[in-house]
């Protein structure tokens, strides 16, 4: 059972992305009104907008936080064909009193010739690195070699995916057993285009990213893609948002069996497929331990998927709205002290048919 608090968003147009920072104490929102807003959670749990600024000259599609080891850094990408990196500057004491902070643009990445559809920071063990993908079908990987100087970013790799890209996901695994890996999804509508999900792996020898796998069974446009956090598994788990929710496992095939020096080959299995959204699935994202997957679809719901201890996946929760108005004060939740009961009749069954019961 969940409880919802609401915060007035104050954007003048549609919000496209919301993002928590690493600790869940700050969040960022981006919108078609071309701005990004940053919100901070105060000690008593209230959220306040501490920054709001114009970031692009087109709709901002995604906003994402870098790992706090690199400081307070955001990246955004937009319809205006650019991605940008922002850093928070510790403000004057006046600003602090007013609860405001300043974000400055450190760099604009202008290499794309079309709308930039996703931007994601690489796992922190790779340094300060990010990837963007665009409708022009190219994934670009940038790196800032000097963490203290965020205005210097260099384009390290350009990966051509041949199809318009909609989403990327870095494999978060920091195990030495796995090379850096990035999955790319395409929402290209033409049925002939086969490679809707491609996986690229970094090769230490060639110092380049090479294609490792294509998920051939995904033939419909892909809207989102997400590697799960790895709890020490030898294989990877990838969730794909397409016309349904799909969860794949990728087991690296033993190196002896593949030609040496090439990218890892994987055994791909689909472990779950859900079409409960009845329509397109637009977003998928994993919780921090990779035990619950959340998906969002055309049906206006967010669904939560969980595997039980026997590794069977099923839907354990649905978040949705029926259009009823917000009642009372926002920011006030239920103060329901609860070990909870999912089934309200639990109480009745204690009471039996009619007699109520007191407790000694």
């Amino acid at each position, binding site marked *: 059972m*969940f409880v*919802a*608090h*609401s915060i*007035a*968003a104050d*954007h003048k*147009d*549609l*919000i*496209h992305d*919301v993002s*928590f920072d690493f*600790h*869940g*104490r700050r*969040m960022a929102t981006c919108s078609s009104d071309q701005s990004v807003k940053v919100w901070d959670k105060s000690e008593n749990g209230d*959220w306040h907008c501490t920054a709001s600024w114009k970031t692009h000259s087109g709709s901002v*599609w995604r906003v994402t936080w870098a790992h*706090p*080891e690199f400081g*307070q850094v955001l990246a955004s990408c937009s319809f205006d064909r650019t991605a940008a990196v922002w850093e928070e500057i510790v403000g004057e004491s006046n600003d602090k009193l007013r609860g405001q902070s300043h974000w400055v643009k450190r760099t604009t990445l202008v290499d794309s010739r079309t709308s930039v559809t996703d931007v994601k920071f690489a796992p922190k063990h790779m340094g300060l690195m990010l990837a963007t993908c665009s409708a022009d079908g190219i994934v670009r990987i940038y790196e800032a070699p000097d963490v*203290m100087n965020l205005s210097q970013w260099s384009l390290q790799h350009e990966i051509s995916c041949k199809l318009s890209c909609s989403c990327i996901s870095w494999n978060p695994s920091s195990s030495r057993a796995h090379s850096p890996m990035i999955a790319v999804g395409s929402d290209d509508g033409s049925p002939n285009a086969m490679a809707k999900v491609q996986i690229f792996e970094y090769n230490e020898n060639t110092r380049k990213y090479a294609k490792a796998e294509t998920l051939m069974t995904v033939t419909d446009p892909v809207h989102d893609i997400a590697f799960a*956090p790895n*709890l*020490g598994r030898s294989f990877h788990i990838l969730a794909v948002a397409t016309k349904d929710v799909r969860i794949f496992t990728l087991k690296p095939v033993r190196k002896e069996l593949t030609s040496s020096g090439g990218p890892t080959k994987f055994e791909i299995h689909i472990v779950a497929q859900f079409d409960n959204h009845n329509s397109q699935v*637009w*977003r998928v994202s994993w919780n*921090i*331990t990779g035990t619950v997957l959340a998906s*969002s679809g*055309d049906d*206006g*719901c*967010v669904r*939560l998927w969980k595997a039980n*201890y026997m590794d069977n996946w*099923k*839907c354990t929760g*649905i*978040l*949705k*709205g029926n*259009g*009823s108005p917000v009642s009372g004060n926002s920011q006030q*939740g239920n103060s*329901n*002290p*609860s*070990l*909870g*009961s*999912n089934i309200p*009749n639990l109480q009745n*069954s204690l009471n039996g*048919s009619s*007699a109520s019961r*007191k*407790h*000694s």
Partner: protein
Amino acid sequence: MEEVDGEPIITLIPGVNSKKKQLCFDWGPGEMLVCETLFNKKEKSEVVPSCPSIYIIRKNEDFYCRILRKLFNESHGIFVGLQRIEEELTGKSRKAELVRVSKNYRSVIRACMEEMSQVAIAAKDPATSSLFNNQVAILSAMELVWNLCEILFIEVTPAGPLLLHLLDWVRLHVCEVDTWSAEVLGSENPSKHESFWNLVTALVLQGRLDEARQMLSKEADANPASAGMCRVLGDLMRTMPILSPGNTQTLTELELKWQHWHEECERHLQDGTFASSGHLESLCKIMLGDEKALLEQKQQLSNWYHFLVTRLLYSHPTVKPTELHFYAQSSLDRFLEGDSSSEPLDNILMAAFEFDIHQVIKECSIVLSNWWFVAHLTDLLDHCKLLQSHNLYFGSNMREFLLLEYASGLFAHHSLWQLGVDYFDHCPELGRVSLELHIERIPLNTEQKALKVLRICEQRKMTEQVRSICKILAMKAVRNNRLGSALSWSIRAKDAAFATLVSDRFLKDYCERGCFSDLDLIDNLGPAMMLSDRLTFLGKYREFHRLYGEQRFVDGASLLLSLMTSQIAPRSFWMTLLTDALPLLEQKQVIFSAEQTYELMRCLEDLTTGRPVHGEPDAQGLQDDDIETTKVEMLRLALARNLARAIIKEGSLEGS
């Protein structure tokens, strides 16, 4: 085994209209962010959307309830104690210990219930009152289930004592009786009280025959006409054979005696001894285990398991554990007949009577939205080696699965997360890595909290987490210009690169302001100084200043020179160092030896000719600056003069 399918739990977010909009979202460590949006970018919305709201979704485990927090804290203590029992004990003493642990858990639940009841009573508004009453009801259900599990699975009570335990179990949970008892006994004419017969019946149903007899004697006193009957019935009550603890008779002996007694009761009924009193006759029937008579008392029994236990008491007192589920099923069916369908709690209890532990746990998991109950109970049952014996290979995995769920939930809370650490510690497969993932995310609002988190990581040799957390704090400190803090975090992170960076900032500060900040820290670096060259330089440079301040000029001078000759000092700093040498050169006594003076001169020449040594590119442009030129001139002069004096001094005899 069948998979029990719970329906997904639906949470409605007020203000969101799923028919018109979709939702974008993000996970946080303890919460989820959700916002209305439209994904299909190609569609242009006609109407400018109204300003949407952002929603923060949290699990409804509102730990702000102080009383529940106490429950979590106390059960944590019991849990940790239980993990340590493991190896030491075997056999009977082990079982006794496990039973003791089980009773501890239950008493903690009851204490929590008690406190909540008080709050519910004291609550001013009915909404709060009902909220707390709900919670009490849920806790009561938990205790009911746990108690039964204790009797059946942990104590493994054999036939004979089994019934006694079940009676206790029922008495604990159906307790109107005590209220009535107080009311009736407190009144002037107890036997005339309107609840009198209800009370007596209830006592008999619960097998509290001594008390029932006392009631009857009151009736006998007040109503001489029925005295005889009361006495007879009272005698029957007194003589009912029951296994008392410490009693040495065997079950067979008990059964025999009970059979005789049963027949005696039957005889009285047939003879019509109680014919003139409906109440007494019905009591006799109850004591004969007459189902119809029992079912007439549905109101009093109030639930089927009371019915079950009473039935067993008066018809099969030596029931075996394995026979329980037959009686349970039929009791449930007969009690509910037509009235209502079975409820989740009924299913849980039935699974327990069937000794299907996995089913019990599964049903509880579905019904309860918090993992507290199933996690602790399953862990205890696992210690009783019950999960393995029920033959499913994932027995131990289920325990770990539930503990991980529970502990993860605790991490969403700003202080209860510390309890979670211990739970993760006792999950051998995934506990450590889960802890690593969770502990990194704890917001470090205060230094105290940061130190606590670090201590936990260091104890468990989670070096990567220590490094990462210290780095985050160091970065934050640098951005807020708190250099001392940044330095100490870098040292703790063993991050040489960052330590170098911070040291550079310190030095830059010194150049700009002429003094050091955070002297305490720099003075007491100790072996940490070795972390990076720049840090070593910083420490040594500060040491030079100290020596100078203590007027130990010769030592200071050597140190100063060595900083340059050993290449520890960055070239960009050499000018400052040489300038620092000036006062030493100008002293009355000769401080720098001739040798040292030659070295200094060489350093100065190195610097001014702009010859880059070891690839340091930053010493150019010195000659362009007028001030710099003057400084260089002064240095050259001072060095020359010192050289002269040093040569003379060294060339002279001692004592001159």
